């Protein structure tokens, strides 16, 4: 019984770390523009699929992974330049529709560049499971947790210690005031797309050996990352990490003890329950609407 619990927790934390990376991407772009970027899941897909192709072509993982992340960042920056930037003055709803259009372009493009089949990436350090306190853990899970933790650490250093990171935070608090002190909010938005794609594609590469990847993995991963960001409170970085981990745990425990057929629904049941009873998310600021 105890080891079963541990087994589910290990799986849940691994999935949760991926959701956290995707959720951070949502929050970063939301902070820069108040827009929900529905193409976030496609960055995850591009990361995983590019890595699969490069490894298939004989590149070592140490080369393939950075190149895959760079590819996703390039796609995101291009997207921001050609689709988001020209419509920056439009309504939020219009911008959301544009990101939805972008996700169709990216997914449709992936279907042409690659195919509609399911691919897998070799695990980073073998498939020999480790035994921890009676639970079996894949070494890839440790990679997921380690790299995700490192990414979160690097991100908090970036936002806390660098001038540009602080400029991005300032923009999220008050874009007009940020502009007045000389911050280019346009540049902030550009960089936020790059950062979000970096985190998402990192998640996509890390999870590809465990859950496989295909041209359409971005839909569900993107939506669950969105739910995780909402759970922690949209725009809060700590909230995104906490929301991701909680969602991963709830999903793993729910699938293990309640119903595995409804695994994908659990994340959304949790988020509905939270929204109905705690409308600001777990760590979200209590917002007062001004008239």
């Amino acid at each position, binding site marked *: 019984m105890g080891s079963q619990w541990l087994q589910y927790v290990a799986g849940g934390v691994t999935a949760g770390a991926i959701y956290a990376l995707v959720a951070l991407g949502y929050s970063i772009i*939301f902070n820069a523009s108040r827009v*929900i970027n*529905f193409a976030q899941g496609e960055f995850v897909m591009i990361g995983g699929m590019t890595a699969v192709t490069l490894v298939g072509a004989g590149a070592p993982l140490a080369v393939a992974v950075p190149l895959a992340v760079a590819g996703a960042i390039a796609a995101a920056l291009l997207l921001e330049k050609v*689709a988001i930037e*020209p*419509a920056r*003055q*439009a*309504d939020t*709803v*219009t911008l*959301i*529709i*544009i990101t*939805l*259009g*972008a*996700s*169709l*372009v*990216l*997914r*449709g*493009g992936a*279907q*042409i560049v690659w195919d509609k089949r399911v691919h897998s990436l070799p695990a980073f350090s073998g498939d020999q499971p480790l035994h921890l306190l009676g639970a079996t853990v894949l070494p890839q899970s440790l990679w997921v947790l380690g790299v995700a933790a490192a990414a979160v650490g690097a991100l908090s250093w970036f936002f806390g210690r660098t001038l540009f990171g602080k400029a991005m935070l300032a923009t999220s608090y008050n874009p007009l005031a940020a502009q007045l002190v000389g911050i280019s909010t346009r540049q902030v938005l550009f960089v936020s797309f790059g950062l979000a794609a970096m985190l998402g594609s990192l998640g996509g590469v890390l999870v590809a050996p465990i859950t496989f990847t295909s041209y359409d993995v971005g*839909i569900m991963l993107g*939506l669950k990352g*969105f*739910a995780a960001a*909402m759970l922690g409170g*949209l725009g809060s970085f700590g909230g995104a990490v906490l929301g991701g981990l909680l969602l991963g745990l709830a999903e793993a425990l729910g699938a293990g003890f309640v119903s595995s*057929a*409804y695994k*994908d*629904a659990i994340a*959304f*049941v949790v*988020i*509905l329950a939270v*929204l*109905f009873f705690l*409308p600001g998310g777990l760590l979200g600021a209590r917002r007062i*609407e001004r*008239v």
Partner: protein
Amino acid sequence: MAHVASSASEAARARTATSAAASGRRGLFLLAALLVALPIALPNAYFYDVAIAVALNAIVCVGLNLLIGYAGQISLGHAGFFALGGYGSAILSGTHGWPAGLALLASSAAVGLLAFVVGRPTLRLKGHYLAMATLGLGIIISIVIATEDRVTGGPDGMPVPPLALLGWKIHGELAWYALTGAALLFTVWLALNLIESPVGRALRALHGSEVAAETLGIASAAYKLRVFVLSAVFAAAAGALTAHHAGFITPVQGSFMHSVGLVIMVVFGGMASIFGAVVGAAVLTTLPQVLTVLKDYEMMVFGAVLIVTMVFFPHGIVPTLARWWARRRA
């Protein structure tokens, strides 16, 4: 002086109100004429099929536009109601042997009741939180449909019996075209009347500012709930008609991408424009049919068309063109 100015602006407002009603009536006649004349231009059954799909999508979009465009409340889960309407009617008429017309009505009413129950806590949320909640509702509905395979046939879907209304069996493309065209006209007529009524003014007021609307005595929660239920019933009825017309239904009808597709039609055509919703549904339902010649490039081109349109027509096709036309005439 101030009094004169205010009465002058009141008169101007009254004039624009009556002209809006008049242009609405003109639009309704135009739509009716178009629907009657269209069969001349439709060469075969395939084109009828597309026209029927346009009419059914337009019914959903007119309802959804009342919610999104007029009341300002987004929903990313309406495909859930659409699919539930279809499955409800399919199960009642197919599995339980109800007359199909009755099954359609009962299933639409049941979806309305469901929307009433879930709408209460959902519509308290605003903006992105409302988007998340409706998205979650839609996904939960579609997962339940795909999982409960003993009732719904699971991911493979289930057959749906043909539709009969008052003993008259709807058979053949022309009959279906007449039925869906009439249903669309009825929906548009209803929506036009609604937005020119006190209810419509209340919806627009709470779109502008909920607090200001409340201080004027508008029970905003009740109005939002009512229009949410109405749009869900439109979606469910269109979903049931779609299922009976196709003779088959699958869980794809309730997918997140279908919900998104419906919202895209509304925003593309123009928010807070009844005819915008019809135009959006018409263009975006026919576009994939045209794009099938592109085969693998279809999804990519569809996305690109969407991006370009929204960059150049940020308010949607119909309002942008109407403004351009008004400026040219002035």
